[in-house]
């Protein structure tokens, strides 16, 4: 059992087994300055309790990791970030939720980094010495004229303003994205985002009412009228 300060604690297996998450984290934090060995013991026990969760989140995600930044690498970095960030755990939520958040953020960070790395090509290479033009070579230029780009940017701003005003939280945003604009069914969305199917329908109806109100407040009666407006005039 550790002493009150936690530093220089005599930590035995029994204490490690019986302590709550809060006690382990408190002792870890108190020991990390003066007694690193004790801090490491507490941390090992915390990870022992939550390693299954970290593994599960990384290995069951829909992301595919490249060989040079594998799931094992992501898990190691997530564990390191848990170590570094335990002082930020406010004990308002479960430790599992805190660890899940750190792990997911690390995973997304990795996927974004991999996506930016031009050398990563998940498609099989047919014949690198072939003289045949590649699909990229054959693709027509998609460069729009400056005028077209200006119109496109303006339309983007108007739509962003509309979405900013009607989406109140992340559930609204994903329902607009997947259900209203996308083709995904309510059941699939409910499973993917862990919400009930009824909630998807309810939110879609509320979004329809908010959209109607937003358009009516601005006297807009067609998509044409909306997208040819000036972005500044759209603000509520």
């Amino acid at each position, binding site marked *: 059992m550790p002493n009150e300060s936690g530093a220089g604690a005599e930590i035995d297996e029994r204490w490690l087994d019986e302590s709550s998450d809060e006690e382990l984290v408190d002792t870890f934090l108190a020991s990390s300055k003066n007694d690193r060995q004790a801090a490491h013991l507490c941390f090992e026990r915390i990870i022992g309790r939550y390693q299954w969760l970290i593994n599960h989140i990384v290995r069951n995600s*829909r992301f595919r990791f490249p060989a040079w930044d594998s799931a094992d690498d992501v898990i190691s970095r997530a564990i390191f970030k848990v170590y570094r960030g335990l002082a930020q755990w406010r004990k308002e939520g479960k430790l599992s939720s805190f660890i899940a958040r750190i792990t997911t953020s690390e995973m997304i960070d990795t996927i974004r980094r991999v996506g930016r790395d031009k050398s990563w090509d998940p498609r099989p290479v047919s014949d690198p010495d072939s003289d045949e033009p590649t699909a990229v070579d054959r693709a027509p230029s998609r460069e729009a004229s400056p005028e077209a780009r200006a119109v496109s940017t303006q339309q983007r701003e108007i739509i962003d303003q509309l979405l900013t005003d009607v989406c109140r939280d992340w559930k609204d945003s994903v329902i607009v994205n997947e259900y209203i604009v996308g083709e995904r069914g309510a059941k699939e969305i409910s499973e993917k985002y*862990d919400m009930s199917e009824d909630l998807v329908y309810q939110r879609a109806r509320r979004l329809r009412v908010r959209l109607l109100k937003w358009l009516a407040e601005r006297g807009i009666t067609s998509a044409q009228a909306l997208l040819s407006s000036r972005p500044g005039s759209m603000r509520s």
Partner: protein
Amino acid sequence: MEVGDLVARKSAHPEKLFEYLRGESDGPSSQVIDEHLSTCDDCRAIVALTRALKHGPERSGFSLEPARTHPDVSEIASFFYGKSARPRGAATAAHVASCRSCAQELAEYASAERSAAEYSPSHSLAAEVPAAAWELIRDWEESSFAQQKTATYAVSQEMIAKLTQLLVQRREELEVSRREAVTHPESGSERAALVPVIVVDRSGSLRGVEMFERATDAMGADVLKYTGEPERFDRKPFHALLDFGDSNRVVVSDLILRDEIRLPRVERADTEPREADYFIVED
């Protein structure tokens, strides 16, 4: 049409308009919605807008520029966990509504959160921290980043909240004392630029306001000099509370050495602090 009329007519609008657009309405329901659309401009506008968003430039004639800059991972996390500051959160909401990859990231948080909520750890599991994780941890522990600030040096969130409140309450008073200090009491002429520095105790209660003189040191850096009793604040932590106009203020701290403190510079892309307030926490 007035918004009030819209509310009054709300029940007349078809509730399953999106299901209709998805092709999920049966024959009779579709017919009712078709009839409604032939007379309702508002619903027609929603239909046209949804089709424009659904089918993109080829079939709608609109060419929405795709959003290029994704919000930070931390912003996506805050959005999911409901702690995003409103203006930034609203921008994230709009982005996610039209960005497949960010929506996918939210799905990852949702899935992880469900696993975390259902997970019940066994207390006696043996640890298997991977060697690569220990390597990262040991590298970090040996670097200066792992060294904690001393208690007297760090400023808690609670203290920042108290100081912000104090500044709001005493803003006018501080401005008067600054004006009085700048003007010489006898000649009325202007003295060197003086900056009020608030002195508080550990509980955040006001002890007084001390004037520091703004100057430039040998390296060309902006400094504040205390011209009162020598070494009164020597080696005491000095904090600058910088307001960039968003919800979080930035605190930068340093020690006063030989009655002088170098003014901290915090650079953020395309923005300067709107206000800077300085304080000393004294035991």
